[in-house]
């Protein structure tokens, strides 16, 4: 059967003229992806003891928490009945993949919150004793009234952080793999329906988390006139390169498989990629966002000849490109899947508004919110690791 997808006389089903999912649904997997990815970086230090990542380990969990705190915001802005949002956890349908969100998200955030609290407890307790005025009250509240830590308590905390981080890894994978499943399990849509979708989302999530941390680290170091630790940037770049390679391979397998089999859905996807998504997929996601960073990242990741400043600049540029790639990937999946009618005979116009609850302006605010929260968190919590003198044993 030949599909006249997108031929001279297009025809779309009448209800397909209004795509139900807006740019907020693009942001949702983008933000949750960074949540999961940033957490994975912190576990690289806390679980796998990758010492080179010590400078960003604390920053990673706080970033993950701040991003996670804003992860539901785009969903609430998208829901047509936001006041009924809690129905998802109050009366969840066991057959719905989406119904799992409330539980998976809550569990992950609980693990993350306790993890962050335990990691920062020594600093909080110390400040509860030394700070003055209102700050003293803030830290005492954060310390939950416990203002001293015995060596035994510190040891228990350390073990708990380890355990929580171990639990957090599958939880983070579940959080984002599940988002991929939401799309991959929709058989009505040939652009989404794929068993690889959870894996693709997961790997790109890790990539985006590492990229945002690389950028944050380089930016914060520059802002506070600190020299970034070369081994840390190198380690981040290596991880970034490795996970980007994985993400690109999975994405390529997914497309190549459909292209080679040439079943009916390929006619739709081919038309989609060669027209509507030509720029956002081929140019942005594949060339600028994937191939270019794959070529650039080996410089900061493996070269020891180039100067540190140059290597760090390249790492920063690659991280920006990767964040563009992941954003483009989310856009291409969410919006791309709504750009053709289920008649498979015509494209749909996708309206993007500037204003309104689901407009570009609101999207910019949603994207900025985690960074504002992070700034606030950094005023309260010391995201940089303790000095080697105070933690001389840590590096040994």
């Amino acid at each position, binding site marked *: 059967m030949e599909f006249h997808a997108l031929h001279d006389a297009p025809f779309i089903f*009448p*209800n397909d003229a209004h795509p139900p999912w807006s740019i907020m649904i693009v942001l949702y997997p983008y933000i949750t992806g960074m949540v999961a990815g940033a957490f994975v970086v912190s576990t690289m230090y806390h679980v796998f003891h990758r010492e080179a990542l010590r400078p960003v380990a604390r920053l990673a969990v706080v970033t993950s928490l701040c991003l996670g705190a804003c992860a539901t915001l785009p969903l609430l802005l998208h829901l047509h*009945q936001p006041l009924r*949002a809690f129905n998802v956890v*109050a*009366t969840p*349908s066991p057959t719905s993949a989406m119904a799992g969100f409330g539980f998976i998200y809550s569990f992950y955030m609980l693990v993350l919150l306790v993890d962050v609290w335990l990691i920062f407890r020594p600093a909080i307790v110390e400040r509860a004793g030394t700070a003055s005025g209102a700050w003293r009250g803030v830290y005492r509240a954060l310390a939950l009234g416990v203002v001293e830590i015995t060596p035994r308590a510190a040891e228990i905390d350390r073990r708990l952080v380890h355990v929580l981080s171990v639990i957090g890894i599958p939880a983070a994978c579940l959080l984002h793999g599940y988002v991929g499943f939401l799309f991959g399990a*929709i058989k009505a849509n040939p652009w989404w329906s794929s068993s690889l979708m959870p894996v693709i989302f997961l790997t790109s999530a890790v990539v985006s988390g590492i990229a945002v941390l690389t950028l944050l680290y380089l930016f914060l170091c520059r802002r506070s006139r600190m020299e970034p630790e070369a081994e840390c940037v190198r380690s981040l770049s290596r991880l970034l390169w490795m996970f980007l390679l994985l993400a690109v391979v999975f994405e390529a397998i997914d497309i190549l498989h459909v292209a080679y089999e040439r079943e009916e859905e390929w006619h739709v996807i081919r038309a989609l990629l060669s027209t509507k998504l030509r720029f956002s997929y081929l140019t942005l996601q594949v060339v600028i966002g994937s191939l270019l960073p794959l070529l650039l990242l080996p410089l900061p990741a493996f070269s020891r000849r180039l100067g540190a400043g140059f290597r760090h600049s390249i790492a920063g540029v690659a991280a920006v490109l990767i964040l563009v790639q992941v954003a483009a990937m989310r856009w291409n999946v969410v919006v791309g899947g709504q750009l053709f009618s289920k008649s498979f005979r015509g494209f749909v116009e996708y309206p993007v508004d500037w204003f309104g609850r689901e407009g570009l302006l609101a999207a910019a605010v949603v994207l900025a919110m985690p960074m504002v929260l992070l700034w606030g968190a950094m005023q309260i919590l010391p995201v940089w690791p303790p000095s080697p003198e105070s933690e001389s044993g840590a590096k040994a």
Partner: protein
Amino acid sequence: MSLFELPILSTLGPAAAGGCASGGCASGGCGTAPAERTSENSRREFLKTATTLTLGAMSLTLLPGVTAGDDLLPLPPHGGDGHAPAAKPMYGFLIDTTKCIGAGKCLTACRVENGVPDGQSRTWVERYVHYKDGRVEVDLVPETGYAESGEVQPAAEDVLRAYFVPKLCNQCVDAPCNQVCPVHASIKSPEGIELVDTDRCIGCGYCVQACPYGIRFMNHDTGVADKCNWCYHRVMRNEQPACVEACPTGARVFGRVDDPDSEISKRLATVPTNVLKQHLGTLPLTRYVGLTDEVT
């Protein structure tokens, strides 16, 4: 088994009574001072009670019968004699594409009957025109019908054949829209008709994405999911769906498929029929006569 006989809830008893579930304290086996032991016990009991209550509450939400669905719709008054209701009726919908003339009467009838907003549709009619040069063009039949629409029509000498295909909800037995709804707002009536509980719908749009036939939409006026329900309210009054009643040619046939004497049963028994997108395995109850490969 009552809910409180469930293992997870049965632990509420000793916890609520402040007893030690392990019994270790009673034998003095805890190895702690009495004051500490009391503190430890109360904390342990608190944690146990809190955990039990939380898990219990969460498990309750997973029991659809307890929380949703069952109380939504009264059983339909079938039987008609005011005594024992008839056995659960089974309905079906047959579209005869060879009879449809694209009058558009069904479209207006549906819009008026169900208050469907302009620009959105619970049902529509597609026209397929096969030209002699091999082209196939598809368009939507206007609500006014072609005669009054003022649209330029294809020249008869260029056309090889043409036909109309009405579309409406397929009432899938294994409905993807129902499967994906996170809050039990997509419900199947006892007669197998897929309905939307507008008081429960959160407006996430997942069901709209999951419907392979493009039947569902987010109603611009109500902000919740909307779809064709075969005019369930009319069917419950033993009336025909509005579109069926309005069709001047009998291209839409609705009725009980469990009644061998009904028109639809007789037609289904004698005419080969097909369903849309059969490969998706949704098992539609809406069947078509004269469905061609071009129709998606």
